[in-house]
Each structure stands twice: as C-alpha cells, then as structure tokens.
C-alpha cells in the first residue's frame, strides 16, 4: 500500500461512495449541533417529514446565546430565548441529546465534545460552526459546515464534499518559556496569512506540536480556520490517549486498549506526501498580539504597530489603513504602550483548565488595573467546577476579575457580554474582526498569560519578563 497521510486515512476510511468527477460522499461519526445554526435545519426536516437518521451520533449544546450570569437569573433577551427554546423543542421532538444551560456538563460545543469523550481519533466530526476544527487535535477530521449541510447530515449522516488538499505545518524546535500554543498558531497565521490554507486540511507536526498538551493542540487546531483551512489536525499519540482514558463516552478497560491499538495506525506514514508544506521555527516564536481587524494582522509583543505604507500589496495596504482607523492606533506605536479597557479570558480557543491555571499564575496576589474590567468565562461547567476545586476562582476574584458561567460569551457578543463602542479588549478568543465582540469594540488577540498580564498592567506587557 502506498504511504498515506493522516488526512488521507481519515478521508478514505469514511468514503461511502465516490463517483468519478463528483465530490465524495463521506460518512459522519459525530454531529455536534448548537442553537444558532440549527433551527432552520430542523425546520427543513420537519417540512419534509424526515427524521434524524442517527440520534445516537448527534449531540446538541446551547452555548452561543446563553447568558454567563447566574443560572438562577432569567434570560432577558427574548429573541435569544426563543432560539434556545427552539433548540430544546427540536431536540425533544427529534430525540437528540441536549446539553442545555442547566446541564451540569454544559459548555462551549468545542470544549465539551473532547471533555465528555465524544471526540475521538479517527472520526469524521462535523458541526455548524467553523471552529469545529478544534476536534482535529485528537486525530479526527473535523469540519465546520453551514446550516443546509447540517440538515443534510441530520437526515443522512453523510456529507457531500470535494476532497481537500493536504498541508503540513511543521513546527520544529522548542517553544521558549512564555510562548504558548496560542502564540504558535498566531505565528503560523501571521506567516501564511488568513487565506494561506484555503482549500486545505492542515496537519501540524514537529517537536513543538508533539510537546503540546491536548489543551494546547486544541488551541492550535481551533484557529486553523483563521488561516483559511477547513480542518486542522494532530496525529494521536500517548498524550492523546492519556487525556482520553477514563472519560465518559470513550471505550473503557480492554476496549480502550483495543481502540488505542487501532488509533495508533492513524499517524501519517513515512514517505507520505502533502500537497503543501510550511515550516516554522518554534524556537523563534514570541508572544504575539494582533494589532488589526483580522487574525493575520499580528506582531510580537516587543514589536510596533506597522505602517500601512510598508505593505506592498495594495489590498493589504488599504486593509491596514482601515484597520488602524478602526482600532484607533498610530503606526509605529510600541505594542507595550497600547492601553486596554477590558480583558476577556474565555472562548473555545483558550478557556480550558490549563489556560485558567496559566492565567491564574500570572494574576496571583496582584490586582487588576483600575482602568480595566476583566472577566473569566470558563469553557464548560466541568472546567468551572475543577477550577473552583483548585481555588483558581478565588485567585481571579481576589485580583478583581469577574468569574462567570460557561458559554461563548464575549467571543462573539451574542449574549449580553459585549464591548461598548471604542472599548479596547485583550481577548483570548480567535477573531478580531470589526465589531466581533460588540459594535465598535476593538479586539487584540493574545494568549491567556498575556491577557492576564495586560489586565494587571492596564496595557500589553511581555509575559516572558513577568
């Protein structure tokens, strides 16, 4: 057999049918559903009198609209409530398991999939959400889809998809102290650009990736979409299996060992070729901060806001000019002089226990700057409980952080957590588009440690010198 990449193994093993000259028909092992992108899909099923084909492979989560204030308080936005109610009704009617606002294991869909053991190596996973790429950290092919495709998968458990090209992003070397998985992926996006991986599924390889925890790998795969890729993945290894062992919904005991044996066949074979290869020197990466209105507009914390005139491409130059106006920044301003008003520690990129631990180390015994309002939104109720068991909530609260319930929150501002026009935020999320965190809000993407340090200092600081 010719050598195959991880991506090829995943694709080929899920081919239900391949007609010459047509997209593949792929089988889906796990379909994650949330309230924002599913109501129209369930409506479509209802109108056509169809059922959900595999309710046992479908899991729904309420996360985007859910308020992060106390669960005892009602939802005040009637349209958000209507959407959440629609999800509950649909799940009830179609027999789909739902993690709603009151479920003890509720959280952001891309957090609880892995946490509850649904996400496993070798699966094809889809969700009506671009950050589905997160699940690729386990050696799964995880693809974000639109609502029409959500309906298709609900009805048929299959996806019609033209094969992606494969890209290896090889990060050699060791990440220096203070440089995180978030910085790694920001560095990749800065290098290849936000359209750099369009049409591709990325596999991250190299020492720096191998040495990442599962949390870190999820952070990296999460932002593959910000490089334009449809999927990001890391081959499964002992780090993966150790994370999974004993979780609910994974095989237990001997079954787990048998599964591991199978999963060990997934990594890319020696000699297999990728369509595109990108190399990054992990040892040369620094803590990054975005300065503009897309995730590719990024510089090291020691750098300066660039001058639009320095961009060769006219489109990039125009975009940089617009971004600086929107962000209210002057060219050549040192990043460390940029003052912030808000800090958001959360989102499916960086709200896992390891992120909260790392950020709490930074804030321990210190106080949030007077000018800053800072909040922590754990990615799931389980993470929140664990953090509370470890006393992290106390550290954050003592420092002046708000400690919230789980959800997407200010990552996209669909719930009441939004930036006010003109406010500047250090955010651990994944998108800094205009208005992403609230109309007129200004977002700088950073790692949890960098966000925590900025909360204390009131401006960006190099966490390596903390």
């Amino acid at each position, binding site marked *: 057999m010719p050598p195959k990449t991880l991506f090829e193994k995943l694709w080929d093993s899920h081919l239900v049918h391949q007609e010459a000259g047509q997209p593949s028909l792929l089988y889906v092992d796990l379909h994650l559903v949330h309230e924002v992108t599913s109501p129209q899909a369930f409506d479509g099923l209802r109108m056509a009198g169809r059922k959900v084909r595999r309710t046992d492979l479908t899991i729904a989560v309420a996360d985007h609209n859910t308020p992060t204030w106390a669960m005892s308080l009602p939802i005040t936005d009637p349209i*958000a409530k209507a959407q959440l109610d629609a999800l509950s009704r649909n799940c009830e009617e179609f027999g789909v398991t739902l993690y709603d606002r009151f479920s003890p294991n509720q959280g952001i869909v891309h957090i609880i999939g892995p946490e509850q053991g649904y996400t496993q190596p070798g699966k094809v996973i889809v969700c009506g959400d671009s950050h589905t790429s997160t699940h690729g950290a386990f050696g799964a092919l995880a693809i974000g889809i639109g609502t029409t495709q959500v309906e298709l998968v609900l009805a048929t458990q299959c996806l019609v998809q033209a094969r992606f090209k494969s890209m290896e992003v090889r990060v050699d070397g060791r990440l220096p102290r203070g440089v995180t998985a978030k910085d790694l992926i920001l560095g990749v996006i800065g290098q290849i650009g936000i*359209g750099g991986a369009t049409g591709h599924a990325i596999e991250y390889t190299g020492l720096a990736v191998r040495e990442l925890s599962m949390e870190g790998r999820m952070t990296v795969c999460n932002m593959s979409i910000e490089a334009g890729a449809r999927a990001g993945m890391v081959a499964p290894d002992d780090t993966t299996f150790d994370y999974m062992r004993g979780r609910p919904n994974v095989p237990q005991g001997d079954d787990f060992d048998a*599964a591991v044996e199978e999963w060990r066949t997934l990594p890319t074979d020696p000699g297999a070729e990728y369509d595109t290869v990108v190399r990054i020197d992990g040892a040369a990466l620094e803590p990054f901060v975005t300065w503009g209105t897309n995730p590719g507009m990024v510089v090291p914390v020691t750098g300066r806001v660039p001058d639009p005139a320095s961009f060769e491409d006219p489109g990039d130059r125009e975009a940089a000019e617009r971004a600086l106006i929107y962000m209210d920044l002057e060219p050549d301003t040192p990043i460390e002089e940029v003052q912030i008003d808000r800090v958001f520690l959360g989102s499916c990129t960086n709200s896992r226990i390891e992120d909260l631990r790392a950020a709490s180390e930074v804030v321990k015994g210190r106080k949030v700057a007077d000018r800053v309002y800072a909040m922590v939104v754990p990615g799931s109720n389980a993470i929140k409980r664990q953090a509370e068991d470890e006393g992290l909530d106390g550290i954050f609260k003592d420092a002046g952080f708000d400690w919230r319930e789980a959800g997407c929150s200010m990552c996209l501002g669909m719930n009441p957590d939004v930036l006010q026009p003109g406010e500047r935020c250090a955010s651990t999320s994944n998108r800094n588009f205009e208005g992403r965190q609230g109309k007129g809000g200004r977002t700088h993407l950073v790692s949890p440690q960098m966000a925590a340090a900025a909360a204390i200092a009131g401006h960006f600081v190099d966490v390596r010198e903390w």
Partner: protein
Amino acid sequence: MEPFVRVSGVVAPLDRVNVDTDQIIPAQFLKRIERTGFGQFLFYTWRLNADGSPNPDFILNKPGYENTSILVAGRNFGAGSSREHAPWALLDYGIRAIIAPSFADIFHKNCFENGIAPIILPEAQVREIMEKAQAQPGYRLTVDLEHCRITEPDHEGLNIPFVMHDDPETHEFRRHALLNGQDEIDLVLAQEDRIGAFEASRGPYGGVLSVGRNR
C-alpha cells in the same frame, strides 16, 4: 432552491480584501430562527450609521447601485464563520453572484447551497471589472452559467470565461446543481442503500474503524 441560469444586473464594487462574515452579517442578527428576512442586516455596520440612517459613503447606498445583483470584491471573500446567514442576507438583499479572486471555503460552499454563484477570476480581471463598476455607477454585467461567461450587455465589451471552483470537476458538479436548482439532500437520500451498507460494514471502535461508541 431557485435555479441559476443567467443573471443580468448592476455590479457593485466592494473594493476590500478579506471581507469577513461578521461584516456581511454581524452576530447580533443571528438569533432569528427563520431563513428569510436577513437582507435588512446585510453589511449592517458598513451600510448604516449608528442612528440607523444609510451611510452615504457605502457603495450600496450610492446612486446607481440601488438594484445591485452582482458584487465584485477583493480576495478571500467570506472569511470567518460558517454562518449561512451570510448568503441568506446577500440573497435576501438581491445579490445573486459574487465575483472575486478567491473565496473562503465554508462561505463558498454555502453560496452553492443557496443559489448564489461565487465566481472566481484572476486578480487582473477582477480589477478591470472593479474599475469599470467604480467609474460607471449602474454598470451592468450578465453572468451566463450555461456557457460560463461574463459579458457586458451588448456583447461588445468584456466577454470572459469563468469558473466557480479551482477544481474543474467540482466546478462542473456545482454548475450543474445551480443550473437545475438541485438540492444536495435529495441526491444523498437516493443513496440510502450505500449508506446502510457502509454503516453495516464498520467495526466496533471510532475512526478508521467505525461509528458507535458515542454514548
């Protein structure tokens, strides 16, 4: 889905690269549970001032571009989220075709599902159309999907071929579906035997091996 055979209409130049889905439709408008009515929110923060009045500087509000049905934009159009509300908003506003050097993948696919033609042209040709549309408000083009050509109405000036996907086979597949207004779901439901056989063929564990083990 409404078939797309030939669309003639006003071309609006949106001379920006990386137009993202948060600009096409901001998140606060994703709470509706219908597929329709999203046109009023299209390019919300660019198109409307803070008080809700039209921003006269935004291209779709300028005289001559009132009845735009074709957008021409910079590379990587539709970057960002998977929200199908983006094509729903474009369609509801009256946009049937988008011309750009490249598209973000999920948005690109979502266009096909909704009868919007995402047209890929080389940068230089996009630039030429952009400049014509900027110089002559009300500039019209015809997108002919049967012959995959873009033409000026009199067939005198511009007359160029186009594709909708870099892969010729995928382009042809999508073209066929658009021409016939064909929904994917019907195609796949017709493969029931194959899907059932595939499910039956798989072993006990996830992955290269099987479904199941989810619960």
